[in-house]
């Protein structure tokens, strides 16, 4: 018996929901032989601003949740992604990736999530200090999430590239607005994983769209605290840096490829807070 498939509509991921772009614009996605695959959403500046509002609203709760819970949720993302690996492989193969490469991509992404899940309750100890001040005070410095982080994923935007960019900011207690790379379909399917992994709505928002149009907006927005820009393009970097001046955004400029797993990528989106208190009676 024949069964006509029901292709998925790829929308944006904002505030835990999957809205269409308010702009009504599309990114047409075609397979390796030019066959039509899908109309992804081409996010607008307004979509980006909506995503920042959602991220800001959610950020306080995520930042305050325990390290243990954040670790559990990161691990949960890995579990759900692993469970759906066939879906991702099929989708990647449909976009022209050889199956072995597609499988490696998915397992790499899973491993990255497991890696960062484990950091959730350890990087604080690594990057904290008790400072032996020369006065009768107890004095300590600890990392705190910077707040809302804009992430420009590597241009190609394979699954491990996207995950390597999002996971460190996420496990560090930040809310994220990410611009996916060219693999829009993979990014939105990953959003479905996030949506079913107990990640609170608004903590990760994923947009698909034109990089030239959106990078300056990420850098410019006054309620974005930090931006990770994965780019080898000197002009793009400079434009973003200049736009970021007005609120002194923290900028992490990284090469246009997967970030190798490191707690220093978590530290890139932390502020160090130092607290003093007198010792005495």
């Amino acid at each position, binding site marked *: 018996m024949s069964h006509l498939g029901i292709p998925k509509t790829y929308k944006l991921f904002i505030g835990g929901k999957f809205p269409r772009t308010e702009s009504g614009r599309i990114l047409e996605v075609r397979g390796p032989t030019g066959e039509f695959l899908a109309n992804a959403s081409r996010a607008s500046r307004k979509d980006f601003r909506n995503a920042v509002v959602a991220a800001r609203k959610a950020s306080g709760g995520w930042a305050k949740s325990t390290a243990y819970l954040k670790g559990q949720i990161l691990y949960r993302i890995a579990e759900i992604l692993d469970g759906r690996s066939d879906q991702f492989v099929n989708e990647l193969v449909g976009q022209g990736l050889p199956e072995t490469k597609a499988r490696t991509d998915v397992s790499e992404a899973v491993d990255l999530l497991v890696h960062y899940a484990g950091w959730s309750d350890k990087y604080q100890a*690594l*990057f904290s*200090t008790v*400072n*032996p*001040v*020369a*006065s009768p*005070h107890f*004095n300590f*410095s600890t990392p*705190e999430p910077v707040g809302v982080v804009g992430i420009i994923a590597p241009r190609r935007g394979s699954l491990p590239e996207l995950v390597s960019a999002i996971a460190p900011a996420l496990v560090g207690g930040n809310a994220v607005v990410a611009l996916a790379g060219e693999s829009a379909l993979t990014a939105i399917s990953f959003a479905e994983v996030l949506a079913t992994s107990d990640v609170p709505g608004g903590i990760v928002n994923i947009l698909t769209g034109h990089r030239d149009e959106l990078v300056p907006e990420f850098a410019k927005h006054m309620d974005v*605290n930090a931006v990770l820009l994965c780019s080898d393009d*000197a002009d793009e*970097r*400079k434009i973003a*840096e*200049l736009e970021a*001046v*007005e*609120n*002194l955004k*923290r900028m992490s400029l990284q090469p246009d490829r997967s970030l190798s797993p*490191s*707690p*220093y990528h978590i530290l890139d989106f932390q*502020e*160090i*807070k*130092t*607290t*003093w*208190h*007198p010792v005495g009676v």
Partner: protein
Amino acid sequence: MSANDFLLGGFAPAPESTDHFEIKKSYDLFIGGKWVKAAKRFETTNPATGEVLSEVALAGKKEVNQAVKAARKAYGEVWSKLSGAERGKYLFRIARLLQERAREFAVVESMDGGKPIRESRDVDVPLAAAHFFYHAGWADKLAYAFPGAGVSPIGVVGQVIPWNFPLLMAAWKIAPALACGNTVVLKPAETTPLTALKLAELFEDAGLPAGVVNIITGAGETGKALVEHPYVDKVAFTGSTAVGKEIRRSVAGTGKKFTLELGGKAANIVFEDAAVNEAVEGIVNGIFFNQGHVCCAGSRLFVQESIADTVIKKLKKRMESLVVGNPLDKNTDVGAINSVEQLERIKELVKAGKEEGACIWQPSGGLPRKGNWFKPTLFTECAQSHRIVQEEIFGPVLVIQTFRNPQEALTKANNTPYGLSGGVWTDKGSKIFKMTAGLNAGVVWANTFNKFDPTSPFGGYKESGIGREGGLHGLSAYCNLSH
């Protein structure tokens, strides 16, 4: 007014003597281990008297270039080849020499900048020496500082520092830079160049290799030329947020590293269960320390409504007893305003405060006739929208608001683009941690204020800057990490 123009508050004069050291009539630039003349010069004055203290060289583009090249040469040929232990020994020497000449440095600092001798003697100079001593010990231990990461020096560091803590800021900047293996070109502020130049004398005495630290004097144009110089690998700036943003712009796209320590508008929050007398001392120290020329000053006081009247009454009484006057007098609590420009800025904002409807109060004592002075001042009936609440005054002016519960205090406290520091006064431990965690600020003092230490990282959230100085976290600003 008494026979002594400066004497207020009923104490016998106790001025520090100035006959035990020399301020030269003129100073040149310290470049490549030599004193180099410049075509132009400018005067530095004592803000408490208006008298000219010395004439210093004005570094133009040519001299900046010379200094950066000297630093580059010293980096390549000498400093990057020394072991960490040897670098550290130079820093230990510098710390010791500074301790030995502490009295001279304290007096010169107070003469050139206007700060009370009690502060320069007890805070600025000892802390500056401590910064050299602390970082000296790091020089051969950097491999342990960053777990799992490789560490290497950056190269030539261009540093621009402000006039509020001239020597201390020089130490904050130079000590970690050298410990981490970099060489330095430092520009002190145009109104307070003398202690940095004296520090250069001390580098000579320490036998520090030529070009490892270069001190160039000048104003904004000199700083700009330094920051923009293509051979500068890292920029470290302490100063206003406006200039900080200009610098951030100028390093965009260059790949230069940078740290910025900028302005602040710290909230000092006093709860009804605080030890009120201690809190009042903390409020006074928070805002009147160094005439309020402090980026982390507790310039916004939030008092819980139930004790507002008591606190304000006690505060006024305490302010009546503050001795304003001769910075060199050991009784002085509040010294001279650093420059005429700064005095004008303070007056402008105070005028705006009055015009916008806040209520001003100042103690009854007079002010010296000569020099730049401003009375310790407080404003009540302040609204969040007032300029005096939103803008950094950088003077001895406190704005007071009230609150009812912790959440309201946090919301108001965080309602500013700044995020450098904050204070909390309460006897309840769990409340302390709720508040210190909730303040968006890099340094939070609980039941104390304005404490500093080389082991303790300092630096701001949001528009108060990027990066930390001091402590383990401050080191990373002067290293390249590979991981």
